[in-house]
């Protein structure tokens, strides 16, 4: 057992070194110093409080999305539609804001309702993918991709149509809400403690849901063997739907935070790709809710830290995406190699 753990760690270390090695080679090939690059990424993400706050701004939606995906992964579903669920969360949040801004209700209540609305919006969008899967026999990957496109189209339609700024038809987004309607930020920083609270509540709930509840165990059974789970008496399709709903609600919360705490309005790419990034994080941590926090933080740090690259080193900041992708690939590869090697060793 202990030996096994050691072996595992060795494989992961190898994967990690390989990933950094490959990225370093890419850097060297464009005449950039790898150590300089990593240093800049690190300084750009953890170098000072303000930057760390930016990392947290990216971390919150990423963690929420990852938490949601842990649920769908557990039930064996590839919820690619999570990106669109983030978008719908943002749309629903914006919608609630638009309805209530003039209502005279206390801003705090409006914010809470808007975020709740976002969760409902995300859940409804996820339910569509679920219905397509359960009743229409449409694989959730294809259904989700389709719904992602629809969600983008819907955003564009709203921004250019019913929700456009007066006299303007621009991708720039809807009219920003007054400051008092956004989640309060920490002084001089862009991170809202409330957003952090939402994210941590999300991951903690999911952790306990998956680790400690009957519900979580049943989800896992459904994910690992649909047929056997059914014969063991688990209402399988209902559980598939529940997992879509939970994931959608969390993705919706991510979208809500994007509107309520970051952009204060609806913009076309409001999801910022956090849905797809969350898929990478979830793949990397392989159902382990405990690891969602450090890995999501790491990915968020890469995203934010890499902003330094074009400014300081004239490198493209998509390098962080390359590093993230390569890392996931190598880790999956290491797991595959280990599995093959491990089986032979038996």
């Amino acid at each position, binding site marked *: 057992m202990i030996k096994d753990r050691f072996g595992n760690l060795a494989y992961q270390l190898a994967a990690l070194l390989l990933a950094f090695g490959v990225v370093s080679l890419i850097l060297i090939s464009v005449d950039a110093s790898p150590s300089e690059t990593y240093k800049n990424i690190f300084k750009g993400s953890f170098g000072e409080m303000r930057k760390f706050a930016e990392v947290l701004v990216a971390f919150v939606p990423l963690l929420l999305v990852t938490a949601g995906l842990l649920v769908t992964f557990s039930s064996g579903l590839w919820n690619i539609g999570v990106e669109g669920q983030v978008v719908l969360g943002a749309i629903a949040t914006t919608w609630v804001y638009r309805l209530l801004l003039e209502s005279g209700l206390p801003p705090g209540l409006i914010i809470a309702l808007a975020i709740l609305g976002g969760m409902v919006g995300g859940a409804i969008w996820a339910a569509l993918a679920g219905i397509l899967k359960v009743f229409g026999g449409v694989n959730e990957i294809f259904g989700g991709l389709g719904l992602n496109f629809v969600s983008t189209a819907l955003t564009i339609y709203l921004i250019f149509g019913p929700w456009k700024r007066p006299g303007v038809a621009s991708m720039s987004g809807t009219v920003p809400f007054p400051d008092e309607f956004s989640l309060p930020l920490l002084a001089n920083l862009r991170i809202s403690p409330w957003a952090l609270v939402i994210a941590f509540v999300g991951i903690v709930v999911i952790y306990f849901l998956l680790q*400690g509840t*009957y519900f979580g165990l049943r989800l896992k059974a459904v994910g690992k063997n649909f047929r056997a789970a059914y*014969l063991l008496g688990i*209402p399988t399709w209902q559980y598939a739907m529940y997992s879509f709903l939970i994931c959608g609600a969390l993705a919706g919360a991510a979208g809500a935070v994007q509107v309520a705490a970051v952009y204060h309005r609806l913009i076309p790419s409001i999801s910022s790709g956090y849905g797809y990034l969350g898929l990478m994080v979830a793949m990397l941590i392989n159902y382990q809710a405990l690891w969602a926090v450090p890995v999501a933080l790491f990915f968020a740090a890469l995203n934010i830290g890499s902003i330094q690259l074009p400014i300081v080193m004239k490198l493209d900041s998509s390098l962080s995406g390359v590093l993230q992708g390569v890392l996931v690939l190598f880790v999956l590869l290491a797991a595959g190699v280990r599995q093959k090697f491990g089986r032979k060793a038996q």
Partner: protein
Amino acid sequence: MNVELKNIHKHFGSVHANKGINLNIPTGTIQGILGENGAGKSTLMKILSGFIQPDSGSEVFLDGKPVVMHSPADAIKYGVGMLHQDPLDFPPMKLLDNFLLGLPGGIFPNRKEATQDFSLLAREYGFTFDPENYVDSLTVGERQQLEIMRLLFLGARVFILDEPTTGISAGQKEKLFATLKKFPEQAMTVIFVSHKLEDVESLCDRVAVLRGGELVGETQPPYVTSKLVEMMFGKEITLGERQPVQTGGVVLSMKNVSLEDVRMKVKNVSLDVRAGEVIGLAGMEGSGQGMFIRACSGLMRPVGGRIELKDKDLTGKSYHTFKRAGVNFLPAARLEEGLVPGLNLTEHFILAEEPKGLFIDRMMGQQLAEERIKSFNIRGKPHSTVESLSGGNQQRAELALLQSPLSLVLLEHPTRGLDIESVIYIWSKLKDRCKTDGAAIIFISSDLEEILQYSDRVLVFFNGKVSAPLDAGKTTVEELGQLIGGKGWADKGEAHD
């Protein structure tokens, strides 16, 4: 091809599965390998077929040449092919595509030619398949036939069969044996792994017996059954006497139930099953007994008639409704349908329990698992994943998952692939449960002796026809064999109580 195994050792962690086995199998023989579950048969065969590598120092010789096989593909290149206990095919594929898999040759297989070869080979061995059919429409028995054909087609010279007779009917078995007996003429070597004495005795030219990872003896005909059993178990065991049971009230009542799927119709079956009763379903694979047992569990919706459980009409209700009414179904494909690979025993037992509150009480689960493991004699730990258990222990785990209260247990091939000890144990457990809960049992088996031994009444299925219930005490293997083969139906008539 001559096969020689020298000093084969294999460790799995602390388990020493093969302990220095030396065995020489001459060209053109049918070698039987006997042994109970966990004796090391499967490990030895997996080494010989390249699935796993032996510990260093072990040597395999084919026709006198030392060979090292890293994979089954390697093995087949050397001419060694293996048929597994659980057929390794790819369910959602067409037969032909499954067949084409692993064939050497280009990216674009010549389908037309392959179709011809396929049909030719199938005819030669008396199997009837439609190459364009899908694998998942086949029964387990038919899948095994397909796998045998595929290995033949790949040019196997050494042919390893791991418990090949468990899934197939008596007729198919005869056909198989006739086929295998031709192999030595073509200088092919057959290694026949089984725990069924009768099969080994009737087929094999020589027998090697494994026990506890060691080769404990080799014999040649004439075989002495009691001697073989003693070598296998270290002691003599018999199935014991049939025990008639007292039956209670009607548990399951089927009235003119008709079933239909794309291939077959089962018409107007009426049957009352009483508490404590055991009904055996006999018939060739795919004769309608599978549909019948699924209808009894709500997994298949009848097209006509009524199904009542303890006087409650459950016709057309879902499996979960049946389950709440005390019906449990244990499918044949244990890892595909019965258990959840990746989850451990404790988690399985927790899943089968009614949830108490929202959170799982881990302590309770651990205790529950330990109790069940003990009372069902499962060789495994609470944290063992089900796929790490042997077939017999998986079956015990499935039994341990039976809910309480229980009114009807439905089993498909409950003892397939298990050694005698496990068979006896499992049936005694089953009968115990039925006695305490007042439950009835309906089971499918292709082992007629098992059916006669444990059933009170027997239904025979032939091509969708269902016989009237036969008193197991009064019928014989011969009679059942005839009915299964479609003979003697005139006086048995159709169905019904």
